[in-house]
């Protein structure tokens, strides 16, 4: 039961249950000058493999997410492949996107039955470049990119639209920031924790504290199907549904106070069938969390971003995959029974992915 006209994208619709069985991430930091990408990534790969007892050669499919524009190098993902032992040849793919979309590709691969296990990883070092300038290169090259509007500026336009619509004010934004960094105090991987001063306006109405930290980091996840998942993990986080939708690139065509693509993806992923207890939202800016909460009807009963979310650590290209990993971890540990994970890409929440994860009832 997944939405209109049987166009659902739940695992069960395809007759195969697939779960997140392991998750690991780096301690995210402002810079990692003493490490190359593969050196940063490798400990994380080894952690997820050791959690499951798998070795690189045992994994059926490998998929990664990263960006050449962060690395400043063409085909940069091929260097990271050294970390997964790509000889003799493995079944491998890459998305020039956040690792959440690599996980989507791996999930589809497992749904086809071609493989029973998948390794998904993502990494990004923002420190070598000027991230705000780098991200302008993903914009429409005719009308928008020549003006070099940076990521904070575009998020600020969205925040002001929300304020103009009477749906938020600066204190409410500050509240999101404070709660995120407070929650992040319990997250050993977070880059920003605890009391963070609001700071000056970076681009008004957004202050420093409304924006994510810029940093380097990596994450990895292992997926497995059916009984294989039960062998590899005591309480697998079953992916009940996953979908992603995109909106027009023209900012002036969209209603920036809403995220209809997130809403639609959530409907197709089966989010509204039953309540969730936890939501990991990929909202790099405080104002975006408010947009997402409203578009997903999340009320006070849902624990939003117990990890601190992207406001506590936002390694570009890995932050969305981390949302899925964090949600899955809470299911693994029994803290959550049904969780939502969300990832975003593009300016002002242009492209959004929603996954619904569940744990089976506790034994006894």
């Amino acid at each position, binding site marked *: 039961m997944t939405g209109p006209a049987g166009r659902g994208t739940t695992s069960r619709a395809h007759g195969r249950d697939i779960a997140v069985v392991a998750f690991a991430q780096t301690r995210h930091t402002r810079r990692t000058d003493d490490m190359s990408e593969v050196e940063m990534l490798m400990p994380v790969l080894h952690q997820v493999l050791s959690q499951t007892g798998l070795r690189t050669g045992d994994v059926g499919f490998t998929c990664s997410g990263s960006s050449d524009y962060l690395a*400043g190098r063409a085909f940069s993902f091929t260097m990271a492949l050294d970390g997964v032992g790509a000889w003799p040849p493995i079944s491998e793919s890459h998305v020039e996107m956040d690792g959440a979309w690599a996980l989507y590709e791996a999930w589809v691969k497992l749904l086809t039955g071609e493989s029973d296990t998948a390794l998904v990883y993502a990494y990004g070092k923002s420190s*070598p470049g000027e991230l705000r300038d780098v991200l302008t290169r993903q914009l429409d090259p005719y009308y928008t990119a020549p003006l070099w*509007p940076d990521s904070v500026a575009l998020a600020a336009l969205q925040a002001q639209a929300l304020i103009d619509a009477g749906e938020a004010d600066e204190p409410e934004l500050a509240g999101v920031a404070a709660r995120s960094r407070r929650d992040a105090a319990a997250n050993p991987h977070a880059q920003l924790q605890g009391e963070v001063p609001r700071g000056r306006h970076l681009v008004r109405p957004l202050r420093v504290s409304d924006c994510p930290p810029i940093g380097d980091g990596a994450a990895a996840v292992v997926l497995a199907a059916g009984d294989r998942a039960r062998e590899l993990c005591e309480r697998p986080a079953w992916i009940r549904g996953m979908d992603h939708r995109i909106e027009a690139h023209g900012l002036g065509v969209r209603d920036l106070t809403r995220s209809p693509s997130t809403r639609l993806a959530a409907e197709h992923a089966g989010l509204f069938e039953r309540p969730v207890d936890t939501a990991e939202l990929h909202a790099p800016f405080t104002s975006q969390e408010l947009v997402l909460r409203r578009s997903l009807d999340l009320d006070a009963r849902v624990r939003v971003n117990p990890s601190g979310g992207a406001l506590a650590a936002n390694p570009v290209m890995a932050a969305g995959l981390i949302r899925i990993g964090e949600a899955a971890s809470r299911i693994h540990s029994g803290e959550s029974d049904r969780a939502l994970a969300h990832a975003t890409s593009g300016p002002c929440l242009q492209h959004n992915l929603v996954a619904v994860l569940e744990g089976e009832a506790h034994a006894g």
Partner: protein
Amino acid sequence: MPPVLRAPFVVEFPFTRSLGPVQSAFLTGLRERTVLGVRTVDGRVLVPPVEYDPVTADEIRDLVEVGATGTVTTWAWNEDPRPRQPLATPFAWVLVRLDGADTSLLHVLDAPGPDAVRTGMRVRARWAAERTGAITDIACFEPYEGEPAGPARPHSGRFPEPVTGIVAPARLDYTCTPGRAQSRHLAALEGRRTVGERCPSCRKVYVPPRGACPTCGVATEEQVEVGPRGTVTTFCIVNIKAKGLDIEVPYVYAHIALDGAGLALHGRIGGIPYDEVRMGLRVEPVWREGSRHPDHYRPSGEPDADYDTYKELL
């Protein structure tokens, strides 16, 4: 652990892009101080115009002219303009719905401060003195108290000498740091030594090392000095002179397995006529003052290596 190395690195491309009929008309129009939009199937006017209806995906070509005046639909005050942004003094990013349009255009607004900007304020385009057919032909918007322009009017989209393409320069500046394994390697090269790393699992020696064994997927740590001499495992003859490279053609580019290395690296072969280079030739590095890498490799004078000694390294 040697100190972290850093080097500036610039990625710069002049992206040359062709324009379709709608974008061509829009950008040519800006050159002529005329703002065009496009009418969708359901009658809305999109500015800036697109070639396909965002709702129905139908091809749309129904061009209209809208005003160069409009209303701010949202804004954000930018206190610290970044180097390539349109104005060097603090400005507002704005979405402007031009008179006659149903959607908003992203641009910048020149205003004395954030208190002078509000959603709903009236603005007009300030045209650039030199216009080429680009979004930056609108230098910026500025506050405007005059009469609004009327509704959108039909426009043929035809201009003399239409702009059919744009060149979008894109430059990004990076500061590269090579990481642990490559830093060690580069530090050793300063002493004219070549150091690789041995995989703890398969025992292969990687040079230059990248910190991981691509076969085993494990970290490499143990440092191993290789060379300086090595064997040509395979080679090619280069007949095309590279721009800005001061090497006479033809020359030989070769894979060279340094003694003790588990794989070959590449380098230029000199000191021997190009047509006398062969597989198995024994070579040694030639260093130039002030260079971090060997300039080239030359014959060491030893007898050629046996094929069996390097066949696994081809």
